[in-house]
């Protein structure tokens, strides 16, 4: 499609965005490669403890205080972190788009009720709220995703609502009314496709923050104990941070890379999709 090609040309003109895309693709490749490169349980104690990276050619990433292969943990951790980030983002976008479009389209008391509720959720500090949710329910990947979605959807809802408020008054929506479109058709086929640009941009940034929230939870020991995530490795390395700082540093670098990459992609999408900035 011609439009997609033009979009790619605008996006690829931005070097930083290309770098971000490269990082994100590399991390996805790492996550996909994990079960092939390290088919064994990453939690297994396979090596001598406190092996520094490059000290033993068999374990190029070194080992942690229990003798677990750090490389295996980081590779499998990429899988977990991306999975949680992506599903939490998809869930919050779904909730946010539904709430935002209903509020923006119908206005009046529907808008009032939904927006007051959104504000209530937003007044609670997000990280505290996720800790509460995870602490109440058992800590599994599922509950962590639910907890992150609960704190993330309000920003999407407000974004979508704002788009709907302006688009609702546009003439192509009035044309849809004159045609006799139902509310559902008007929302889904006319307004929603035209309000997705800021949502796509927000989603890439939201995925980065989801990964950070999950890392924070795992660092505090509130992560799913049955899987390895980057935050959990940092948390486990915390006790030996003065003697073996590499245990925390390596997954830390991975998190920084992922968040940086997603942010660069988000910025790049913003520049490429935002018509007001297209001239530059």
């Amino acid at each position, binding site marked *: 499609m011609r*439009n997609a090609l033009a979009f790619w040309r605008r996006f690829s003109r931005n070097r930083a965005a290309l770098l971000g895309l490269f990082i994100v693709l590399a991390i996805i490749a790492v996550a996909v490669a994990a079960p092939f490169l390290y088919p064994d349980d990453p939690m297994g104690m396979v090596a001598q403890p406190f092996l520094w990276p490059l000290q033993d050619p068999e374990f190029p990433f070194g080992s942690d205080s229990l003798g677990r292969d750090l490389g295996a943990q980081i590779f499998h951790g990429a899988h977990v972190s991306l999975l949680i980030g992506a599903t939490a983002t998809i869930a919050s976008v779904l909730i946010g788009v539904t709430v935002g479009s209903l509020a923006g389209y119908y206005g009046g008391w529907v808008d009032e009720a939904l927006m007051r509720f959104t504000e209530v959720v937003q007044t609670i500090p997000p990280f505290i709220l996720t800790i509460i949710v995870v602490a109440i329910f058992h800590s599994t990947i599922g509950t962590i995703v639910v907890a992150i979605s609960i704190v993330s959807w309000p920003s999407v809802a407000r974004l979508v609502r704002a788009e709907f408020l302006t688009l609702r008054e*546009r*003439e*192509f929506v*009035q*044309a*849809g*009314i*004159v*045609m*006799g*479109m*139902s*509310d559902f*058709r008007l929302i889904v*086929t*006319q307004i929603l*496709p*035209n309000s997705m640009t800021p949502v796509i941009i927000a989603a890439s940034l939201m995925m980065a923050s989801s990964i950070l929230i999950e890392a924070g939870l795992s660092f505090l020991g509130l992560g799913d104990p049955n899987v390895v995530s980057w935050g959990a490795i940092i948390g486990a390395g915390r006790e030996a941070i003065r003697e073996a700082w590499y245990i925390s540093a390596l997954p830390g670098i991975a998190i920084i890379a992922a968040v940086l990459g997603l942010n660069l992609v988000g910025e790049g999408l913003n520049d490429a999709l935002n018509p007001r900035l297209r001239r530059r």
Partner: protein
Amino acid sequence: MTALFRMTDVVKHFRVERGVVHAVDGVSLDVAPAEILGLVGESGCGKSTLARLAVRIYAPNSGKIELDGTDITAMGRRELRPHRTRMQMIFQDPFASFNPRATAGRIIEEPLIVHARGDAKERKDRVRWLMDKVGLPPEAAARYPHEFSGGQRQRIGIARALALSPSLIVCDEPVSALDVSIRAQVINLLMKLRADLDVSYIFISHDLSVVAHMADRIAVMYLGKIVELADRQTLWRAPLHPYTRALMSSIPTAGIGGKRAALPLRNVDPPSPLAPPTGCRFHTRCPHAEAICSAQEPPLRAIGSDARKVACHLVTETASDALPVWSSENAATKRTISTS
């Protein structure tokens, strides 16, 4: 006369921060089958609101709107749906009235999809027929709105409005956004379509010369009210309302060095629709205004033949020849101001 469309005493007010906008204030009009009713007035006089009331994008505060004898005033969106097929709209800015993510073919097909007309192939045939009817090449169906020129876009808008074979099309300034050279083409297309398809138009414009070119009857609107209603020739030959006269004198005459006539108005700027003047709404600008004009609101009353109506205290009918004349004719030249 059996009216295809009738509005009776329709009122639409908008509540805004600073008060209430009296956009449409008691308008009555009707449209006969295959008739073109022109509606002129300055920007801000409530023309576009009237258009949106007619196709029921807005619901009126009071009054009655009938389509083919059916009262559609208070119908909800769902109830209105089957009636929508008989009345469509053409917008001033066609580009803004298209979903930017749809192709021209899809835009024209959309009304057929909404009303579940035919299967995919029949709809495609219908779209091709419509595009041919409005003078668009068939390959244009795959292109996006931004790839067309203004005139071609309005052709897409016209094709979309025709898709459901409506009996009435409300045209809200369909040529105002177009280049002068393109205007005539689009107007001629609309005239040809009326002749071919027996469709009625409510044709809205701020330009009296455009309306006078194509309308059968003309309604002149001022600040939410109809001030004069007459068939084209009558209005063109002998406008009665001072506002209609002002509009006509503002049409530039052809010829090199031809001067624009001084606008016979006391005040150039229209009053705010937030606080319309008392009595006759035009009295603040009217060069003939007398005491009664600011005190009492003139009703829209029939003058001479039944088809002609004027809302002005000063227009009277002499018994001798039944020709309406001005009661204070010499006042007409007394107070004029130049605007050019």
